[in-house]
């Protein structure tokens, strides 16, 4: 009975904005957050992405997957957002001065604190590296699609990922050292 519904093949979704929203909006939302869109603005920016999707859908030629195409739109929308000086200022001041705990991260870091710390590390990346890092490490997009989404050669995407990983790891290390120093001083 229910198993029938489960196993019946799902017809391919028609390529309309509502279907694309249903399939991709949650991921777009998450990507936008990691690309620096503030929580207070996320609904509007996510809306902007799908307004663009809707407007350009007739021109979508299917050279890439819809997912890659939408991520590309999200990256550009987030980049525009970050360039707005007011947002940049607000992001900078809104980021709490989190430090990494040396305790069990699962116990010591609340999800919100952890995300704020992660975003602080990501804020240190330039837009190009951040986009590659977010798509690959957070969204788990394969590298060939990452390169398509950001519009660069595959090897360039690899280089950006490598540099971003190095910077993020180094940033995490510095935060940990700062935390240790703070605990030692207290």
């Amino acid at each position: 009975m229910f198993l029938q519904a489960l196993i019946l093949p799902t017809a391919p979704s028609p390529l309309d904005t509502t279907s694309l929203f249903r399939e991709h909006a949650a991921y777009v939302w998450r990507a936008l957050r990691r690309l620096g869109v503030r929580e207070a603005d996320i609904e509007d920016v996510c809306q902007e992405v799908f307004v663009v999707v809707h407007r350009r859908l007739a021109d979508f030629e299917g050279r890439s997957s819809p997912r890659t195409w939408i991520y590309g739109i999200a990256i550009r929308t987030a980049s525009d957002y970050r360039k707005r000086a007011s947002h940049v200022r607000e992001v900078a001041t809104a980021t709490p001065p989190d430090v990494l705990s040396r305790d069990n991260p699962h116990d010591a870091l609340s999800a919100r604190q952890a995300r704020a710390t992660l975003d602080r590390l990501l804020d240190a990346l330039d837009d190009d590296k951040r986009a590659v890092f977010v798509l690959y490490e957070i969204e788990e997009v394969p590298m060939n699609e990452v390169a398509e989404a950001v519009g660069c050669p595959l090897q360039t995407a690899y280089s950006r990922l490598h540099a971003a990983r190095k910077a993020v790891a180094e940033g995490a290390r510095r935060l940990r050292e700062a935390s240790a120093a703070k605990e030692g001083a207290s």
Partner: protein
Amino acid sequence: MTDDNPDRLHETSEDPELRALLGAGRRELPDAQQLGAVLAKLGPTLGGGGNPPGGGGGVAPPGKAAAVTKSAWVGVAKLAAVAVGVGAAVWGAQRLTAHSDPSTDAAVATVAPASARAPEAPAPPPGTTEPAVPSSVPSAPSVAAKPRALSAPSSSAPPDPEAEVKLVERAQDALATDPATAYRLAEESARRFPHGDNRQEAEVIAIAALLATNRRAAAEERARTFRTAYPASTHLRRIDTLLAQRP
């Protein structure tokens, strides 16, 4: 797809704190209410029903999003109701790559009643008899269980969503260091919560654990079963990546 994709840091980084940070970033997904709010804002753009674009007529430029929102109040309640259903479906589907916080679970459970998932629970077409179930589909009980997104409306709530989330999180956490335990926990989750929201997530953890313990044949079999059971799952890409990463 099988291009060289290095292991993701959230699974393989030697820095547990960095893994935790990335995991937290991956888990921040919108709930049904949040997605519903966006969809409600998009209502005027989509013509209230997500019609295919007709050359862009009537589409507000992105910079005018707020203005669009202000003009969207007529029918917003109706759209929001639809949106909650959409959000619930999306939310249910995306749980695999990002097991969520218990707090988020509670919020979603509140706004996504079973009735809101009705559009995602297609009944077999009238007159349909036994579906063409491939004979090769293994009868793995873990996958034969019906995901909640495809469930008919039910008055019985999941037994303990928070316990399910915690169990799957424990399985996920164990995956990097103790895949045998991860597999056991994933199996336990499948057994205790056959209709749970994290059903697919537990299944992928089991597949990853099988690969990590050099049981590739079993992993591939399980992946095939998953693909048959969840042909539209957004988590298939994750499974493909896992299979490609571990020859």
